């Protein structure tokens, strides 16, 4: 499979979105919590509390929507600053109540628009990066589809970062890269190769800890095993005292 095949798969309309993961892994236990308490409720970010094997966890996801209406409603998974601020509010809440955080990342990028700039898109992302680095509870981020630059990283400063096999994670879209490099945004296949954005490339580069194999249909077996993996990982991370956890997290990013 080429890098561009992964780009296509990561963006496919029928690919499960954050809501699918939340529903399949946490079932009815998930309760959604809304709003950033500052401006509004950004529907590109879904968050709340759920139960995982008897313990509470905080769940945050970038949600693209599963059909055209939902996609419009959720701005195609491109969050505004208030989305990142909602995510941070929920993560801070998780810290207060000593529950781990799981993030599902799927976005082509943070939204580029007038309101987003006026309300400090850069500042909102920057604050998440800073605060997540020292959040005193375990954080696990899973890239399930597109990992578009700073808008994805704002939910991926974590103790472990995993990727679905056909998810992508990149500093710039292949189209953007191609138009800068060759003044031709149609050369996305070549650009996809250059950017080293596939799960296998990123595993080799040490950017992610784990690749989640994708069966042909992302069926229930995958969600069940993913649920077990998440639970085991939280158990492992919760065994560290906080200072050890935070210093491991710092060094995880310090090495790049």
């Amino acid at each position: 499979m080429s890098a561009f095949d992964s780009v296509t798969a990561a963006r496919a309309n029928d690919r499960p979105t954050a809501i699918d993961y939340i529903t399949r892994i946490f079932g009815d236990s998930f309760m959604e919590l809304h709003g950033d308490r500052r401006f509004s409720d950004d529907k590109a970010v879904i968050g709340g509390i759920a139960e995982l094997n008897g313990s509470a966890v905080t769940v945050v996801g970038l949600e693209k929507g599963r059909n055209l209406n939902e996609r419009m409603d959720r701005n195609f998974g491109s969050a505004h600053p208030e989305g990142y601020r909602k995510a941070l509010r929920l993560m801070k809440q998780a810290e207060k109540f000593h529950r781990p955080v799981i993030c599902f990342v799927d976005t082509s990028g943070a939204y580029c628009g007038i309101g987003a700039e006026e309300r400090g898109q850069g500042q909102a992302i920057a604050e998440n990066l800073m605060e997540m680095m020292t959040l005193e509870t375990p954080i696990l981020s899973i890239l399930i589809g597109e990992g578009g630059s700073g808008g994805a990283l704002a939910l991926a400063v974590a103790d472990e970062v995993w990727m679905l096999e056909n998810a992508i994670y990149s500093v710039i879209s292949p189209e953007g890269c191609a138009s800068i490099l060759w003044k031709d945004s149609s050369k996305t296949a070549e650009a996809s190769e250059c950017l080293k954005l596939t799960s296998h490339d990123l595993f080799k580069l040490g950017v992610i800890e784990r690749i989640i194999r994708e069966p042909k249909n992302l069926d229930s077996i995958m969600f069940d095993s993913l649920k077990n993996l998440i639970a085991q990982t939280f158990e492992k991370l919760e065994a560290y005292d906080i200072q050890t956890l935070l210093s491991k997290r710092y060094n995880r990013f310090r090495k790049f």
Partner: protein
Amino acid sequence: MNTADFFNFLKPKNELENQGQEAENQPFIPDELWVKCPVCKSPVLSSDLGENNKVCPKCGYHFRIGARQRIELTVDKDSFREFDADMVSENIIDFPDYTRKLKNAKANSGENESVITGEAKIGGCETVIAVMNSQFMMGSMGTVTGEKITRAFEYATENKLPVVVFTVSGGARMQEGIMSLMQMAKTSGAVKRHSDAGLLYITVLTDPTTGGVTASFAMEGDIILSEPGALIAFAGPRVIEQTIRQKLPKGFQSAEFLLEKGFIDAVVNRNEMKDTLTKLLKLHSNKSVFGEGADE
């Protein structure tokens, strides 16, 4: 003052009409006798411009300046000691044409990377300073840029020193792929540790500060200053116009706009920057600045 000058004087000091959109094509001062100010269009004598630290004497437009000149304007004479001057970037993900681009950037700028870091005194206050350089690949953030900034913060944390960072950047460096993105997290981690140690961090945003630098250490200062008229953005104006398919209002994403929206503390003229930094550093120093009798 003739009539034309008077109206120029009345005009808002910093119009973005010729700025920002074509930010990358903006000229440095050429070696010509006269320079036309891109904002007020007045011809300005190069020597006058030089004496005014490359601020247009007619309208206050701030021409871009290089990192070395910035350091000279900011730190006390002979007090600068550079860190990691020899650190150089490599083509870590084997990106097409990057090796050649790096070579050209070095030749054109006379520098090894897009940031210069070190320690210095500003108005007598010991401080760590990092100054980004638009002449090196438009100040883009590669691994070495991030590493130098991270080391500067770690040094400051260890030695209990404040940090002053002058930003100018087109954003993350595409040619280093995901490694460039990781610099945003790495630098933010170092800023957070410095902050948690109770130390002062001042950012000075200069034209243009965009993308991954805006979305990391540029916006993480305790105090955020900017030069007048600087373009400060997460997404650049062209990208936004392409996304929303409409023209942006005049002055959108200027320093003054960010001040109005509450994202920066003050817009400070280049000629007053050193005094402003000195004042802030003194107000945060452990030594009493309120004269005798005050508590240590």
